[in-house]
């Protein structure tokens, strides 16, 4: 008896040896590879060693009944089919049948049984099992491939935090399912000038993600071969040709192409059917949707012979050093609540305005998305992407404020500790405070964060550190995309005993104890997949 060309491998468990002999005899000429045992403990060992297709199981057995054995089998394999063979007469309420069928992969046959009926049942059950097994394997492979594609896609995109001499950019990128058709990049064109693309390829999933990869490569090439004086309309015309000619209009993309000139604080952009930038004006506190003259063009990939033109379609905006820009794909404004009401542009703008009012830190996209979810808009129908770009003023002239990014590598985090120490000494002259900060940062990054980020593959900065010196305290904030963690509010006491069990405490509590002895207040929050940890260290005198 073969199923899908293979013999059936069967385990029969019955405390009555005579029943096993009868079964063995009956199945010996039927291409069934049968093992028998009469004790539950032995059965589970055999199941772990052999790749059975099915188990025939007696219910009444002295050492361990069939239901107990089934529980053990399920702990090991939740899908292995079991046929319960029993002479028990069921109650009027069908208690036995109910108990048997509580498990989806358990079947029932009453003893004494007809051999042909049993054979048919075995064949049919194994057929379903093998077919389901193939499907499960297929989906597992598909999931693994999607995970890999997701990793590749993340490698193509800038890190969630990018800090350069001229600008700081943070990004939130959330595919509906593992991979996304959203794309963004910021590339240096000449000193102080950067080309930016934020695009949303129609649809989502694998096809959109493949387009995303191709466009990413194309745009990189276009920037590389162009001279310093990059033309936004040239880029759009080439992208249009990619969609209309190379890809024969099978898809399209809305996008913002922009040129940030941080030398003269000027933003020039064209919207190709995409929502414009939002700009936060630090002086008024207002967040405005840019594009006052309602300029713009159609998405790339719609019309073959359309010619994008900077003169008629580009928007130019002058900005201040403190201005922040936000770009989004429509996945955010299409997020909906349980009443199916979508968020919409205006509600998004208001939530953004409120988040920026609370903090101007570079992680605003994460605060906004958190606020959106808190407002009940939790359903995501499309890929979500949000960027924040602002001039890096902190690096240039602030005396009480330090921003640092770091890669999760001990050498680099050690360097961060040194940077913080130098900054504190330079601006306060307080050596003790400087050592405390350095030690705290090293302990946190090495002992806690490195553990949380151990599986990070992508190169480049993963951690953002923000240090503010106030009159009576220093506030240290660290953002990372490691595992979620919570601060143990009652760590072991910091005394000489922390060195007693040196090896054990090195990985279990000493770091926290040292941190707690330095920082009066520690707070952990999580915004999406971003950890935010704040430390407040009181200044003496």
């Amino acid at each position, binding site marked *: 008896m073969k199923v899908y060309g293979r013999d059936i491998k069967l385990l029969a468990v019955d405390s009555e040896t005579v029943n096993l002999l009868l079964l063995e005899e009956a199945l010996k000429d039927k291409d069934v590879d049968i093992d028998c045992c009469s004790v539950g403990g032995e059965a589970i060992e055999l199941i772990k060693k052999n790749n059975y297709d099915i188990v025939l199981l007696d219910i009444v057995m002295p050492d361990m009944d069939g239901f107990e054995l089934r529980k053990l089998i399920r702990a090991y394999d939740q899908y292995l089919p079991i046929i319960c063979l029993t002479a028990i007469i069921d109650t009027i309420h069908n208690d036995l049948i109910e108990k048997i069928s509580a498990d989806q992969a358990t079947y029932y046959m009453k003893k004494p049984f007809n051999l042909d009926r049993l054979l048919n049942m075995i064949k049919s059950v194994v057929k379903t099992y093998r077919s389901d097994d193939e499907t499960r394997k297929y989906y597992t492979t598909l999931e693994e491939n999607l995970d890999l594609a997701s990793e590749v896609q993340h490698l193509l995109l800038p890190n969630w935090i990018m800090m350069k001499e001229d600008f700081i950019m943070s990004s939130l990128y959330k595919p509906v399912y593992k991979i996304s058709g959203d794309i963004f990049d910021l590339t240096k064109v000449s000193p102080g000038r950067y080309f930016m693309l934020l695009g949303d390829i129609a649809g989502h999933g694998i096809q959109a993600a493949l387009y995303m990869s191709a466009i990413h490569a194309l745009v990189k090439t276009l920037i590389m071969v162009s001279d310093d004086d990059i033309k936004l309309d040239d880029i759009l015309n080439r992208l249009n040709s990619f969609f209309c000619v190379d890809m024969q209009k099978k898809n399209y993309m809305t996008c913002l192409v922009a040129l940030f000139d941080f030398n003269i604080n000027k933003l020039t952009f064209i919207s190709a059917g995409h929502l414009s930038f939002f700009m936060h004006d630090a002086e008024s506190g207002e967040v405005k949707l840019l594009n006052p003259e309602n300029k713009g063009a159609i998405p790339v990939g719609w019309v073959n012979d359309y010619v994008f033109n900077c003169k008629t379609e580009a928007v130019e905006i002058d900005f201040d050093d403190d201005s922040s820009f936000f770009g989004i794909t429509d996945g955010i404004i299409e997020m909906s609540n349980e009443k199916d009401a979508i968020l919409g542009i205006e509600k998004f703008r208001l939530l953004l305005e409120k988040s920026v009012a609370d903090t101007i830190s570079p992680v605003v996209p994460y605060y906004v998305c958190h606020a959106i979810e808190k407002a009940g808009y939790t359903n995501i129908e499309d890929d979500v992407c949000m960027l924040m770009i602002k001039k890096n003023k902190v690096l240039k002239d602030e005396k009480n404020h330090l921003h640092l990014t770091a890669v999760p590598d*001990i*050498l680099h985090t*050690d360097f961060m*500790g*040194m940077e913080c120490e130098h900054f504190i000494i330079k601006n306060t002259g307080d*050596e*003790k405070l400087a*050592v*405390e900060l*350095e*030690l705290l940062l*090293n*302990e946190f990054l*090495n*002992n806690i964060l490195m553990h949380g980020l151990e599986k990070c593959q992508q190169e480049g900065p993963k951690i953002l550190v923000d240090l503010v010196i106030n009159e009576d305290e220093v506030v240290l904030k660290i953002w990372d995309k490691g595992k979620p963690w919570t601060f143990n509010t009652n760590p072991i006491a*910091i*005394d*000489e005993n*922390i*060195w007693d069990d*040196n*090896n054990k405490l*090195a990985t279990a509590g*000493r*770091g926290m104890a*040292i941190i707690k*002895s*330095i920082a009066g207040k520690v707070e952990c929050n999580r915004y999406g997949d971003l950890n935010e940890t704040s430390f407040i260290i009181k200044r003496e005198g």
Partner: protein
Amino acid sequence: MKLKSHKKNDVVIIEISGRLNAVNVHLLKKKFQEFCPEENSFVFDLTSLEYLDSTGLGGVVSCLKAATNNNGDLKIACLQNKTKMVFEITRAYKIFDIFEDVDSAVAAF
């Protein structure tokens, strides 16, 4: 981090300079092992040690425990301002005999 060693009156003196941390603490342990179990009296000269974190300090504590388990001792000499603060913050000063200079540390054996 750099390590240098010499002997004075049957005491092994190990000079540690630079930054002692999770990256290089294994080098200190390895250097220390070279002297065990034949030697059991040690002085760590920290004149040029710029900084050490708790992992680095943990390495120094391991050396102390190995020395005492071998019926010996490990003394610390020449802690500078910054490293002294780390010893104070972490209460490590309570488990070591700490001396102003190497000669006093050697004389204490």
